[in-house]
């Protein structure tokens, strides 16, 4: 047995990798590790499917300390970010967060980010680990003509995410977690206790909390498609907070979850992953992120002219694909058109097509003799969905074949497997 994809878990620490402040806790928990952007991070603790299900049904705890945290500080921090990023960050209220993009001059995506306004003159920009330096350098350069300074504080901030339907009740019961009494706390939180404040914290909002009397930024954000919180804490306090969360949540089904489950969770939620769906040659509109670019904001921003010119008409666009059976379409696999007269619409699979397009399932390989061998697209992420039970994938395809319901074939190691374009997200939680 030789995996055709590289073995992604190593049982022993690697000498050169950067270590999370929670590394000892992961080793004690029996984690398997992966090298992720130069960091040794848990890929799974025991079972990535069990971790995935825990997040969907109870709660999972993630160590995201590898992510980059960059602070922009100064009287013109807002203007600097309006110039540096695609969104209108000056419009953020204190305590509000926004998903944004760092573009290059050609409109390509250098990174996708979450930006928190943590003070009148202070923003926290959270970058992907692999892009930390790119983001820090670009922000420093782009803020140079503004009264704002850029600080890469990644080494001084650990990040723990608790995600899942029971995340709130667990966090509410963590001992030593409180609300900071300070100038930067929104007024309406000052007099409330932490339980109420957490319950009332809205999606994509944060509050200044304390843990063991040290500052912790508590944000209602995440990357799993579930309710949950992300906790920005000092590396010194991170191990105690991690343990306290696990102890508090054990009875509610909270378990630590690795990057493998994080990837299948975000995929089900239809969220892009940098390096897969987003690259320097991807324009936001191709990725379905046109709404993230605030063309209406005043003044120039990096990438504006390229975005205004728009993508070429034939530029491929991101779609969701759903298949039947159990075989996953994986990153790099070619997507082909289904020939209209290929005779592959005779349903022969063991499960109905889950997509909106009706019975598209042919027996595996039924499309192999169809049509052209020129691919019409490529898979960027894919897996057998743990929640839905059928294969799901994100792919860039020719715009003429991007409509929901379009039948396509994916070449899975020599066999063409039928898939259907479906609306994103693949999974969305029931909201009360």
């Amino acid at each position, binding site marked *: 047995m030789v995996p055709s994809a590289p073995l992604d878990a190593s049982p022993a620490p690697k000498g050169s990798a950067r270590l999370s402040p929670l590394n000892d806790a992961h080793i004690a928990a029996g984690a398997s590790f992966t090298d992720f952007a130069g960091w040794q991070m848990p890929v799974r603790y025991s079972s990535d499917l069990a971790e995935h299900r825990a997040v969907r049904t109870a709660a999972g705890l993630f160590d995201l300390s590898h992510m980059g945290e960059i602070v922009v500080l100064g009287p013109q921090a807002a203007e600097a970010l309006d110039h540096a990023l695609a969104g209108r960050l000056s419009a953020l209220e204190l305590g509000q967060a926004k998903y944004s993009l760092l573009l290059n001059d050609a409109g390509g995506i250098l990174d996708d980010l979450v930006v928190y306004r943590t003070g009148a003159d202070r923003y926290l920009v959270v970058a992907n680990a692999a892009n930390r330096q790119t983001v820090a350098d670009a922000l420093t350069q782009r803020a140079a003509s503004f009264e704002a300074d850029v600080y890469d504080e990644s080494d001084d901030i650990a990040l723990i995410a608790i995600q899942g339907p029971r995340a709130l009740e667990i966090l509410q019961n963590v001992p030593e977690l409180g609300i900071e009494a300070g100038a930067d706390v929104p007024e309406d939180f000052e007099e409330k206790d932490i339980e109420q404040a957490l319950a009332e914290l809205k999606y994509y909002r944060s509050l200044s909390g304390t843990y063991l009397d040290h500052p912790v930024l508590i944000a209602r954000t995440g990357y799993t498609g579930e309710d949950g919180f992300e906790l920005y804490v000092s590396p010194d306090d991170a191990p105690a907070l991690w343990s306290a969360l696990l102890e508090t949540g054990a009875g509610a089904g909270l378990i630590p979850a690795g990057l*493998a489950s994080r990837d299948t969770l975000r995929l089900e939620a239809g969220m892009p992953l940098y390096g897969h769906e987003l690259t320097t040659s991807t324009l936001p509109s191709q990725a379905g992120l046109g709404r993230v670019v605030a063309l209406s904001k005043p003044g120039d921003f990096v990438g504006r002219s390229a975005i205004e010119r728009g993508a070429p008409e034939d530029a491929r666009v991101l779609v969701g694909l759903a298949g039947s059976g159990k075989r*996953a379409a994986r990153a790099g696999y070619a997507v082909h058109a289904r020939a209209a007269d290929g005779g592959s619409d005779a349903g022969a699979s063991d499960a109905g097509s889950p997509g909106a397009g009706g019975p598209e399932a042919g027996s595996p390989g039924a499309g192999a003799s169809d049509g052209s061998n020129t691919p019409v697209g490529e898979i960027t992420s894919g897996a057998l969905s743990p929640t839905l039970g059928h294969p799901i994938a994100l792919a860039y395809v020719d715009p003429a074949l991007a409509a929901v319901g379009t039948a396509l074939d994916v070449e899975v190691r020599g066999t063409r497997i039928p898939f259907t374009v479906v609306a994103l997200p693949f999974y969305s939680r029931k909201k009360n």
Partner: protein
Amino acid sequence: MAVPVDRRYTAEHEWVRLDGDTATVGITEYAAEKLGDVVFVDLPQAGSEAAEGSVVGEIESTKSVGELFAPVTGEVVEANDAVASSPELVNSDPYGEGWLIRVRVAEPARLEELLDATAYAALIGDGE
């Protein structure tokens, strides 16, 4: 990680246990752990011929795909239906219920050339 001594191993992290002229084939605990949760197994049909070193099946986890190589030459006499319907058996019991195929071996003596438990344990870093 215990490596059973009643069978032979390949460098591709498969095990082979001979009973008469029939070899039972599976993947090792080490391989199963590296793969992560197995979610789909594609096995050859009974009656098909397997040539030593050829790809006869696939093992998919959420994160990656592994190829199943025939560790010996012979006729596939059985594929494990239980694993086809419950792929998690490969993770929960890789040396037992998670076996994959049975092959009627043309030359049983060839198995002597495969790794023994000691050699395989050394290959995977012994006890990691």
